[in-house]
């Protein structure tokens, strides 16, 4: 694995894409995906992630730049010669063919013999536990079953690279979670490289080896899920991944990995400088809701404290979600586990909250 990581299997080199010659949908994209990686392109709609996937599949041409597959440029190779498996948003199972015929199709066009086709189709169907459905039509299957068939069809000709374009978007929550697990499991078992597009951050975090966060045609950050969540590099990523509290202010001084920030309310707090460089800059300080503590006994040594007023308490079962007013921000959320000794805050009370300075990141304004 470590050896394969060194050489990129899929590579985007300075890729740009424009549809109308006026607006760049993808701006100067550089991305290297090692063999066997599960990479997710995450971003809001219109951020350029699907365009990137379509360029990789060959359905869109890059306006500028080079896309390499296994070291070879593929810009001029038509989609059917790229040998890339693809799962579409609405599955795109051929309605006039049975499940078996659907799976057999990629093998037929690749001129496999009949017995070999049958063996491969059977193996692929067994892989997704759909062996009994070989003679059904797609319309007779449920959404989840169609999803599995689409997956099997993308894998049946044993491609090394599989692209997935929001494949779980049409499923309900429970089924989606089950399929997330099945897809990652299968991908790792087969050792295939997967490029997965979604706008669902939970999906991205639970499934991927690495996540590339897209916004405005640019990759904002590319990192493993835990790093992405815990150390967002800019305020877009911090906002987009998970829930996040922001406090705005100005950098007073930066000293030895600690930035002193004067909030707009006048409070002074320490934070970790991420992309602020000099005093006088405006900054957004970001703190995750679950890193905020209001129980004095549990506050660790060296934690910051600020005054807060409880505005709303929401019981959510496994967790409590409390909305506070902190330093002039009415949307400050804290999350606490529903533990036996947990205090349920009542709206209107004045409390003191605190967090560790390293959990508090000074980002771009």
């Amino acid at each position, binding site marked *: 694995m470590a050896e394969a990581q060194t050489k990129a299997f899929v590579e985007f080199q300075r890729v740009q894409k424009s549809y109308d010659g006026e607006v760049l949908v993808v701006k100067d994209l550089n991305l290297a995906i090692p063999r066997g990686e599960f990479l997710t392109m995450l971003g809001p709609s219109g951020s350029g992630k699907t365009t990137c996937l379509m360029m990789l*599949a*060959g*359905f869109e041409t890059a306006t500028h730049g080079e896309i390499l597959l296994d070291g070879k440029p593929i810009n001029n190779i*038509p*989609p*059917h*010669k*790229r*040998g*890339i*498996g*693809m799962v*579409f*948003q*609405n599955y*795109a199972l*051929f*309605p*006039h063919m049975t499940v078996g015929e659907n799976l057999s*199709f*990629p093998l037929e*066009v*690749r001129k496999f013999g009949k017995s070999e086709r049958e063996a491969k189709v059977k193996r692929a169907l067994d892989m997704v536990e759909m062996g009994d459905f070989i003679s059904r039509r797609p319309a007779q299957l449920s959404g989840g079953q169609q999803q599995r068939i689409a997956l099997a*069809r*993308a894998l049946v*000709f044993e491609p090394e690279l599989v*692209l997935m374009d929001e494949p779980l978007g049409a499923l309900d929550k429970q089924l989606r979670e089950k399929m997330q697990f099945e897809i990652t499991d299968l991908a790792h078992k087969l050792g295939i490289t997967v490029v997965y597009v979604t706008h669902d951050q939970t999906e991205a975090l639970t499934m991927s080896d690495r996540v590339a966060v897209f916004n405005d045609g640019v990759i904002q950050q590319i990192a493993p899920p835990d790093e992405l969540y815990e150390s967002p590099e800019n305020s877009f990523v911090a906002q987009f991944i998970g829930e996040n509290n922001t406090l705005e202010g100005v950098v007073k001084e930066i000293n030895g990995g600690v930035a002193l920030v004067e909030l707009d309310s006048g409070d002074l707090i320490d934070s970790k400088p991420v992309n602020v460089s000099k005093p006088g800059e405006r900054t957004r300080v970001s703190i995750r809701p679950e890193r905020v503590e209001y129980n004095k006994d549990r506050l660790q040594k060296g934690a910051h404290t600020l005054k807060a007023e409880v505005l709303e308490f929401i019981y959510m079962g496994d967790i409590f979600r409390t909305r506070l007013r902190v330093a002039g921000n009415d949307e400050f959320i804290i999350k606490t586990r529903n533990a036996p000794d947990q205090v349920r805050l009542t709206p209107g009370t004045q409390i003191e909250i605190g967090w560790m300075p390293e959990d508090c990141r000074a980002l771009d304004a």
Partner: protein
Amino acid sequence: MMDSSGSLLAVDGTPLRRKLAQSMFRSRVRAFGLALPLLAFIIVVFVYPILDFLRQSVYDARFATLMPATSEAMADWDGSTAPTEEMAAALVADLVIAKKEKTIGKVATRVNRELSGTRSLFTKTARNAKKMKPPYMEALIKKDKDWADIETWHAMKTASRVYTPAYIVAALDRKMLADGSIIQQSEERRIHVQLFARTMEISFLVTIFCLILGYPIAFLMASLPLRTSNLLLILVLLPFWTSLLVRTTAWIAMLQAQGVMNDLFVVFGLATDEDRFSLIYNKTGTLIAMTHILLPFMILPLFSVMKTIPPSYVRAAKSMGATDWTAFWRVYFPQSVPGIGAGALLVFILAIGYYITPALVGGQDGQMVSNIIDFHMRKSLNWNLAAALGLVMLVFVMFLFWVYDRVVGIDNMKLG
């Protein structure tokens, strides 16, 4: 809840089925009420006249009403024996009345349809009928020896039937003898079967041409962005804004010997000035003009079906390794078949009853069944035969419809 027979019951004990019917009754009445005015209109001005007219293809009471005595006298005659004196007497009596009432022309026309050349026989005999004395058979034969010919009496026997398959038989180029047997018309009088065949041939060819020309256009329209495809759609619909007559006459200007097309052929050296193509007043003219006029009826259903085929199907096929052609033929085309079915059926059925265009540009060999129906309606005034031709055509179209349903399946047709 269930009753003893096992059917479901509602809470108050009435069978669920009846309860449901009751609860749906009001909305059904309302739906029916909304459709009622149109339904009444269609029944009065469309369904009833058609049924009444179709009845004429098997019903003709003219001879029976105008020659009542003769009809009665012939009722028991089976045509194998010689005509009786009783029949002759009844005939003479009827002829006297017919002459007086001036209905003899209608009678003569009716019998003449069964046996041509008998018209003058009837008018001539009727003039002298008053003076005839018994025995009437001899008097008739003395007047004209054709009365001795049993064929004349056979013709009258056939004409005297109120419900008669004679017209339908005639529409199929056959004739019925007095004993009820059916034989083919003599060779030079067979025109209808050939005409039906030609109508089928023209309709079939027009459908094929429309498909060949329309499919690529519909495909293009379905794959272009909405703005462009709307513009193309307007262009497709543009011909509907001009009258059918104008479009057809425009083709005359285009295709005639000294017309635009032939001039171009001469300019480009494809034809010499003396030997120009005859593109109009023949089957070619009918085919060209009808293909043009019916093309939108092929494009529209095709377009509306193709629009619903998501582009991801073809993409999926290509991602699996299919070439452009394979992706089209194995994935896209099968899904456009419902549109082809709908368009082809629409064009074919419209073409089969086409009238103005073949009448104007068809010449001799471009005429269709509707043109001969028109001829019998307006010129020969043989409405019964016109109705019979219409009935034969209707039955034939129904048959094709049935075949289509068996082969393609009528559910497998989509108009949009």
